[in-house]
């Protein structure tokens, strides 16, 4: 590529209407958030998000505030996060949130209002994705933080010391980061699935299988697994026993920054494919 071509591309990039696109994306996010953040239809997603926190709370009350050691509860929390949140809660929650963004509007026959607006479809898709991300992140980040607080709160001063003077805060930061990456990664994939097929559920189950077996895949294929990246960011290793061993991913260790970058790159790659797909998407409600 010549210097002139690079300069021309740079000029073209700068001349794009970024400010307009940002305004339109913000409008889509506001609109979608207002319409979908709290709906009865999405109640099952709230259940998925907050069920562990409720169980931890009930356990705390039922056991009359007699607790095991902090280290044991740290392992319990790690297991809840890895085996429930990461594998089930966030996975299916994102399926419910992101698959609805486009497909849901096609089923309800209201997508054409967006397509008839003076907004590039790629910009619309990014806006929709961010709206889904806002909802998923609000729900699952809050749920994970709540579970964390409920887990250590009953320990009183010891719990406080573990969180603020020990490894607690660092672990919480890791959980929050992994939750965010999982929401974005699975969200992008389910958004794409919803544009490629009428019912994304079977494909989601196949993805679930893919994520489960990602540890035994060749390194090249592991690059296409969200779980394979997130594994390296988990703060507490849970010893796999019995049936849980099936759910455990053992991958080659990689630096944390690489894992974060890898997950984000995979998400971005899926979004690029989604942008291509949304450009060619047609409104044919009669076939829905």
């Amino acid at each position: 590529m010549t210097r002139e071509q690079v300069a021309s591309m740079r000029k073209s990039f700068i001349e794009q209407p970024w400010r307009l696109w940002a305004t339109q994306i913000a409008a889509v996010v506001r609109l979608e958030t207002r319409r979908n953040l709290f709906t009865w239809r999405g109640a099952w997603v709230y259940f998925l998000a907050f069920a562990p926190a409720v169980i931890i709370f009930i356990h705390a009350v039922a056991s009359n505030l007699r607790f095991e050691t902090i280290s044991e509860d740290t392992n319990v929390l790690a297991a809840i996060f890895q085996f429930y949140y990461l594998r089930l809660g966030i996975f299916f929650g994102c399926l419910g949130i992101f698959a609805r963004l486009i497909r849901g509007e096609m089923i309800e026959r209201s997508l054409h209002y967006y397509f008839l607006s003076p907004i590039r479809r790629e910009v619309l898709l990014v806006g929709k994705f961010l709206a889904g991300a806002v909802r998923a992140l609000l729900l699952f980040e809050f749920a994970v933080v709540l579970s964390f607080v409920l887990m250590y709160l009953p320990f009183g001063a010891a719990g406080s010391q573990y969180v603020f003077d020990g490894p607690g805060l660092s672990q919480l930061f890791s959980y929050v980061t992994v939750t965010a990456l999982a929401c974005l990664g699975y969200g992008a994939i389910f958004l794409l699935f919803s544009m490629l097929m009428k019912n994304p559920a079977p494909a989601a189950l196949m993805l679930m299988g893919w994520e489960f077996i990602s540890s035994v895949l060749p390194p090249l294929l592991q690059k296409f697994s969200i779980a394979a990246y997130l594994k390296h960011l988990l703060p507490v290793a849970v010893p796999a026993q019995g049936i849980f061993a099936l759910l455990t991913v053992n991958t080659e260790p990689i630096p944390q920054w690489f894992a974060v970058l890898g997950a984000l790159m995979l998400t971005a790659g899926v979004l690029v494919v989604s942008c291509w797909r949304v450009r060619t998407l047609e409104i044919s409600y009669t076939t829905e």
Partner: protein
Amino acid sequence: MNDRIEFNDVSKFYGEVLGVNRVTLTLPPGITSLVGPNGSGKTTLMNLMTGLIRPTKGSLSVMGMLPSSAYEFFRAVGYCTQFDYFPRGVSGWDFVCDSLLLHGIGKQQARQLTEEAINRVDLAQAAKRDVAGYSKGMRQKVRLAQAIAHHPTVLVLDEPLNGLDPMARAESLALFQELGKQGMHVVISSHILEEVDRISDRVVLMTGGYVIAEGDIHQVRQEVRDKPMQILVRCGRPEVLASRIFELDHCVEARLHNDGAGVFLRTQDVDQFYILLNKIVTDGIVQIESIMPADDDANAIYQYLIGSDGGQA
């Protein structure tokens, strides 16, 4: 940039089902009516025009723009579709205002344009109510408001009179006429032929996915040469006129009007008919009060070309 809507050999197939086939059309500004029975391809043509679907073959442009240039295109185009569905839980006001916010304009301007559009379709009193509680006519109106709110230069209306009461119909037609006079493109599909006939500058007749005739209604009628044209002549002594006209080879029917003050004539050569009529008048055989085509409207053309009653399609 030109001011035409152009279809160049456009075909659309849904799998093996034909939507429209080999449509080549050029629509100038003004009011254009798409007329045809159900399944004739009117909605497909409109969806193609607005980029909701893509042509299987051929190309099209609206005032030189393509739907893929979304920002320029949809600022110029408003489309009131036939889909009677709305996002859940929105009021009429929110529905229109939200659409405007997607243009990237400020809230204040969006509110101003929303108010203007809502008032224009006479829906101000119900604007803050949930659309789910609207009657069919109100839903039609709010969709129309959404389509015109951003002041488009091309307005595409798919069956816009469906569900409207006679008063609202008349108001809508007056609005379309006003927009057409302002130099806008107004493309309307409707089954109510008498109404679109009255306001249309041109008509596109479709059946089975094909355009079978297009142009000014009177021109289209003239083109249908193989079908006799019916003319009502109001005159004194209509029986004399009938007998004289019957002398012509191309006159296939002459029938006295019920009130006895006119005669319906059917002729296959309207030009020759008018020459003879002039002669009859100048000879002072009958005194003519008025002459009017009795079937020079879309409905009659429709029946001739498609072989069914447009009003029942």
